[in-house]
């Protein structure tokens, strides 16, 4: 049983690795890599939802915070104002900023529960959005950063489609692995205990809020990874990258894929990217939002666990309760 799982997973990874050799450039980067990047950011949301029972709408903003930090310290079209750091240092700064933002936001967010936490994180995301839009000295206001230089690794620029794809794939596998590892480690078990019954965990002596904040920190780290990759993908960042539309798109991707398991984040992200890219060819430019809304609605209504839940049901497994979050089985 375990062995079969390992074989399947390895084959799947091999397929992902072979993918760029069979498809044109556009599919490598703008579908493949981009879906992975969005998937990583969605994973930060799914991680909190599935294992922490917490829905945070601030994840895109956290990814954006890391992106902005990286942009500030990178070479870009308006450089000259702030010091430019060699890219490994700039990335380190971005990761610290993203993780730190996750922790800080967590400290505030865990004071509420359920729908109130959703609202609180949404408000925080809006605050960050408006800060980015209004601050012209450091964050370049409405236009943001453009022409951000992308680093070169071993002489090859990350603009090279294959290299960028493999980088995203590696990062995706790493954060996915991190999540799976954490979930089975004591930390992860405590988090899931807190999700299921915080009072009992508290009575057992665990510091509930501390663990929840730490979970936000982990999610912040994952989102920061996504944010760094997203900055390099777009070659820039602006308030629009972290606004309402962007925030909702991460939620849509995570929910469509299924909030119960980490792979749902990537499945949902891929679905979202495919619809966004090719909806034009299906329903014409204009009604793309209706299509996305309908898909989202149908999935939320029919399958509490998104596409992964649907798949499971087709295969004959039992799904969990009727709630949105399903106890993961590994």
């Amino acid at each position, binding site marked *: 049983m375990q062995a079969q799982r390992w074989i399947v997973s390895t084959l799947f990874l091999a397929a992902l690795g072979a993918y760029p050799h069979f498809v044109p450039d556009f599919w490598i980067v703008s579908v493949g890599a981009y879906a992975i990047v969005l998937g990583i950011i969605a994973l930060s949301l799914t991680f909190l939802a599935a294992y922490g029972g917490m829905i945070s709408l601030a994840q895109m903003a956290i990814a954006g915070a890391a992106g902005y930090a990286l942009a500030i310290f990178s070479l870009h079209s308006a450089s000259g104002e702030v010091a430019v750091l060699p890219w490994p240092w700039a990335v380190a700064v971005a990761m610290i900023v993203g993780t730190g933002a996750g922790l800080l936001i967590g400290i505030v967010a865990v004071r509420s529960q359920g729908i*109130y936490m959703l609202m*609180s994180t949404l*408000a925080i995301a809006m605050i960050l959005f408006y800060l980015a839009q209004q601050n012209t000295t450091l964050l370049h206001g409405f236009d943001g950063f453009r022409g951000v230089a992308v680093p070169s690794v071993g002489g090859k620029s990350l603009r090279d489609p294959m290299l960028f794809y493999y980088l995203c794939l590696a990062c995706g596998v790493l954060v996915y692995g991190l999540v799976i590892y954490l979930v089975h480690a004591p930390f992860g078990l405590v988090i899931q205990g807190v999700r299921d019954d915080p009072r009992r965990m508290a009575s057992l002596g665990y510091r509930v809020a501390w663990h929840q904040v730490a979970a936000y920190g982990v999610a912040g780290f994952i989102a920061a990874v996504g944010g760094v990759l997203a900055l390099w993908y777009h070659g820039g960042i602006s308030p629009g990258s972290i606004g309402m539309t962007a925030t909702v798109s991460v939620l849509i991707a995570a929910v469509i894929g299924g909030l119960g398991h980490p792979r749902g984040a990537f499945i949902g992200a891929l679905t979202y990217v495919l619809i966004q890219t090719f909806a034009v060819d299906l329903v014409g430019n204009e*009604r793309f*939002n209706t299509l996305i809304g*309908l898909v989202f609605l149908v999935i939320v209504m029919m399958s509490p666990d998104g596409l992964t839940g649907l798949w499971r049901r087709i295969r004959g497994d039992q799904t969990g309760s009727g709630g949105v979050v399903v106890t993961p089985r590994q």
Partner: protein
Amino acid sequence: MKLLLLATMNGVTLAALYFIVASGFTLIFGMMRVVNLAHGSLYLIGAYIGYDVASVTGYWFLALFGGAIGAALVGVAMQYFVLDRYQGQDLRQALVTIGLSLIAADLLLARYGGMTYQFEVPEFLYGSVPMPIVGGYPTFRLALIVFAIALYVGLWLLVQRTRFGIIIRAGVDDRQMLGAVGINLTRVSTLVFALGSALVGVAGVVGSSALSIAPGEDARYLLSSLVVVIVGGMGSIPGAAIGALLVGLAEQIGLAYFPTYSVVISFVIMVAVLAWRPYGLLGRPA
């Protein structure tokens, strides 16, 4: 001095508008614990339908009814066909209504286009009223205060002095018990939802007369309603009034004195309130 006075009046009148818009949301959440994130869409629907009614009949007052009825119909349909089956699942309802709002926004865009619409408000409501110190103040904004007060009083009377109000209050306290004593929950839920939606529909017409109808307004009013209702406490009408005042004043005074970051203020208030009093200023846990 003049600026402070103007900014304060602007804040109070804006608060009146926010209260009118948020009252429906808090009623529905308080009674039915439904998180209706398509609230902003209902606002827009009420506004557009009201606009159609006003264009056809030529009477602005009829638009108020048109908006109310239109939004109530859509709201009840939403509740009956979609939301009712997820009773008790906060998060699921939130997600479902997000999906509905995406679709609604796009369909409205398809039907009405991207142009901005403006209501032809009756003459006696348009223009400005001469006032000491500030010179003149827009009549319609003053009318908003009157309307909001009337609404508050009306709702208070409804909730405190009628049998229906007793049922609503009982439902807020303990929904299951209400069903156990023999009240037809479905019928009451539908009525409350209709009332809440009608309120938003009227708010759509009123708000669009003060400002305008355009795509994107749904998201804006949804956010502001959320802030107002959460700050005040979900399910509390007085809470909505207090929340509206806080937010309205903060926004306008902020815009007058430190405009660059004033847009952030209402969200900061919301986060601060949630961190300090997780159920809002006057709210209670379920």
